[in-house]
């Protein structure tokens, strides 16, 4: 009896291995089962894939899933955790939860509208950092002791704080300089990628958003909730000439200095006429002069000369038609130029019109890349997570996205952008007690029959060792020098102390 049971028990693993001499039946049986063994291996592999997926979801994908904007799982933690604060590195509070004597919690934003889009809101849904950092704000890394103490006295535990890279001085300057214009200002530190200021208008007051929600939703035209700095897409206008100039430098690595163009204020190709702003006639100029004066006719002719495919791959290396290397929610910038594109498209694209669309954050990154010697940093606005008591939980370290141009190319573009300030379209920045470089833009648009001109400026301050990179857009602000340059100047002035 016992022997029989044993025989009954021994077969299993051997049958699968098929490699043992202790097979109860002969070799014929072994080959008889070959197909079954193969099938078993196939399913073992499939099940291993399932296990692998579970491991993958809980390691690689874990953070992205728990921090997903749509993920409201963490909200139930609000029953036992007081939502953490959002602060600056200097300790200024941007969002804080106040608890009154009855234990009622209110989320308070000391700066009101000033940080509306970036800090966001936590009622009527969530936006900005309140949404993207929701998981961390409702997590706690407080010591076990203080957690137990809170539990003992049935008090809530304080959630972790999010420390941002924002500088309130710059943010305030940008906020007031943009004034009643619609548009956006982005300021970042070129060598780290830290976002120092980010303003978008029209805005809203996160303190009163629940009262004003209805009217805000009704007013679809102003789309106040939209963070134009990251999600607004605009034609780049002449600010795009930075990349067109880079394209020319790459096509003429040795003889770009011999560039000469005689601007007559307009040029025609077929039935298309490109003219300089206000039909201004720039006369004979080299590449630096064409750039500094933002000469459309010169750059349109460069556009005709550049190879479309190469131009496109240059733009795409600068993150057009793809996501930007940042965790900030943003729209993709668009660059449409194909091998078979018409001459009109070639010319308009070269001067930043055509079908090109770009976000202010993206333009700021491009300026920052030039300022940083050709190396683009990944922009970020959360420098660390810390406990309520101030102990660091996790930290963001600056990281390089890519070296997108050589130091020499960056040097030449810097020289062009400096010329723009010295004798070109951004001379208002030349009067400061700090050096600056940049490029203006007057982006003409046409939507639903209405036409207008957006005012752009991108650039950086303290040219030899850049401190700030900036992108400014004022919708319908006219020329770059009219509206955007003074805004940039106000921000730089605030930084260097006026």
């Amino acid at each position: 009896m016992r022997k029989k049971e044993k025989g009954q028990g021994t077969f299993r693993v051997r049958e699968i291995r098929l490699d043992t001499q202790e097979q109860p039946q002969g070799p014929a049986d072994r080959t008889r089962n070959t197909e079954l063994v193969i099938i078993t291996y196939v399913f073992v592999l499939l099940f291993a894939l399932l296990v692998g997926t579970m491991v993958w979801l809980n390691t690689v994908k874990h953070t992205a899933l728990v921090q997903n904007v749509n993920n409201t799982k963490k909200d139930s933690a609000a029953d036992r955790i007081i939502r953490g604060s959002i602060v600056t590195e200097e300790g200024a509070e941007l969002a804080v939860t106040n608890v009154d004597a009855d234990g009622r919690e209110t989320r308070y934003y000391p700066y009101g509208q000033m940080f509306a889009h970036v800090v966001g809101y936590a009622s009527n849904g969530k936006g900005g950092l309140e949404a993207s950092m929701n998981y961390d704000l409702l997590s706690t890394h407080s010591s076990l002791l203080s957690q137990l103490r809170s539990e003992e006295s049935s008090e809530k535990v304080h959630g972790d704080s999010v420390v941002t890279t924002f500088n309130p001085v710059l943010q305030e300057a940008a906020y007031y300089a943009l004034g009643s214009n619609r548009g956006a200002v982005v300021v970042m530190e070129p060598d780290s990628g830290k976002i120092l200021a980010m303003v978008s208008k029209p805005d809203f007051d996160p303190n009163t958003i629940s009262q004003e929600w209805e009217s805000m939703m009704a007013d679809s035209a102003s789309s106040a909730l939209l963070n134009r700095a990251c999600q607004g897409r605009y034609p780049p206008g002449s600010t795009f000439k930075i990349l067109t100039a880079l394209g020319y430098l790459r096509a003429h690595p040795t003889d770009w200095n011999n560039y000469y163009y005689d601007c007559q204020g307009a040029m025609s190709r077929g039935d298309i006429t490109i003219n300089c702003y206000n039909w201004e006639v720039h006369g004979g100029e080299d590449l630096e002069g064409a750039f500094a004066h933002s000469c459309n006719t010169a750059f349109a002719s460069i556009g005709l000369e550049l190879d479309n495919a190469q131009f496109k791959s240059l733009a795409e290396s600068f993150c057009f038609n793809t996501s930007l290397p940042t965790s900030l929610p943003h729209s993709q910038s668009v660059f449409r130029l194909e091998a078979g594109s018409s001459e009109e498209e070639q010319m308009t694209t070269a001067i930043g019109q055509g079908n090109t669309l770009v976000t202010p954050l993206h333009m700021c990154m491009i300026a920052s890349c030039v300022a940083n010697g050709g190396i683009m940093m990944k922009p970020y606005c959360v420098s660390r997570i810390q406990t309520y008591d101030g102990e660091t939980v996790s930290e963001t370290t600056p990281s390089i996205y890519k070296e997108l141009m050589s130091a020499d190319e960056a040097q030449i573009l810097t020289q062009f952008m400096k010329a723009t300030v010295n004798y070109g379209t951004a001379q208002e920045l030349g009067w400061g007690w700090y050096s600056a470089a940049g490029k203006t833009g007057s982006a003409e648009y046409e939507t639903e029959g209405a036409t207008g001109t957006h005012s752009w400026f991108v650039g950086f301050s303290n040219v030899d060792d850049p401190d700030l990179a900036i992108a400014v857009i004022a919708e319908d602000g006219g020329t770059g020098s009219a509206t955007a340059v003074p805004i940039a100047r106000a921000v730089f002035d605030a930084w260097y102390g006026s």
Partner: protein
Amino acid sequence: MSNLMTLALQTAKYLMIVLMVIYTFQSFAVFARTGAQAKDMVFLRQDVCIFILHFLAFFVLFLKTMDMQLIIFYAEQCLYLAFALLLWRNLYPRASRLLINNMCLLLTIGMIMITRLSYDWSVKQFTIICAGSAIALVIPVIIRKLSFITKMTWAYVFVGIGVLLLVLVAARVTNGAKLALTVGGFAFQPSEFIKIVFVFAVAGLLSGAAGDMRRIIVATVLAAVHVLILVISTDLGSALIFFVTYLVMLYVATRNPFLVSAGLISGAAAAVAAWFLFGHVRVRVSVWLDPFADYANTGYQISQALFAIAAGGWFGTGLYDGSPTAIPYVAQDCMFAAISEELGAVFAICLILICLSCFIMFINIAMKLTNRFYRLVALGLGTTYAMQVFLTIGGTTKLIPLTGVTLPLVSYGGSSVLSTLIMFAIVQGLYMLRVDEEKENEKERERTGDLPGTGDPA
């Protein structure tokens, strides 16, 4: 007091994971054990694990809800488990104890989670489990005594196609697919049962068909009819299960890898055609590629399932501390995500491995059988089981598009649990047939003077 409770809940949570890991380890270690006594010890340890796990879970459920009903319900379930284990063991001493244990554990996990999701559902489910287990107990006898079941091929074919057609015509549409028939007030999903009938039909059609191209073509056409009806009923999960089951059975029956390759290629072509023909197929695929693109509508279920898995982490939130009810149709389609969320990824991975252990046991039984019909049945049932597990877990974890099939024995759904219980019982019946065959072989060998050749020193 509150601290003590937290401590108790946390301890119970981690103990459950430890028990699950021990159980899973045992269910593979048993393959390596040779001695009958050693095996018995393994099975005993597994039974102990099941009971402690069950106790701990209901301890937590009770602490969290303070619902007195749960104590009675717990006692009832304990009785059921004790009866199921004892009856199978005593009525069928030669049944596979690993399969019995796995069956009981999967049912236990299912009952824990369904009770946590909804007490009313769990009572319904438990009633069906009890009834189904009673039916399942007589099935091995039927398999052994009624050998004419091997010769009713055409009856299986007609029943299968007939019922699927009936579902197509008469079923009400739930959750976008025509699945359920209502008979006498009970809604049930015939495709769950037709899976078994289909395996019998294909086994009958193919068992003598090696090398006979005409019979292979007939079998293929009939199988294709099943699959097509299911595709038209938009029951894509079942269609895929039937398709793969047929291919696997065809492969083993004919031993011809070219036929299978041809099948796989035509299956892939059919999938591409389905993508072009059916809007809902395209929706499933685009949701699979990016569930967050249409988060609020089509992507909602899979997004919530993924959030649940992520929220659980390795060790889970603990029962009642997660929010698995945020997932639509959680108890039917996404039970695996609910388990991952509240019991943790470690527990969920163990669950995957236990399902694998069931499948390996099914195939083992097929390997030992010499009767071609029974062999194909064991293989076919094993394949339907494994495919179903793969589709539901793979779907919930976004490895593959979500098809909305149940996790056998664990998910909520009477038809699913009943048909799986029957399936397990059939395989047990075949396992005992195998023992019968072996006994005959042994007699044969003794007569001819061959050594049994098992290599056992005893």
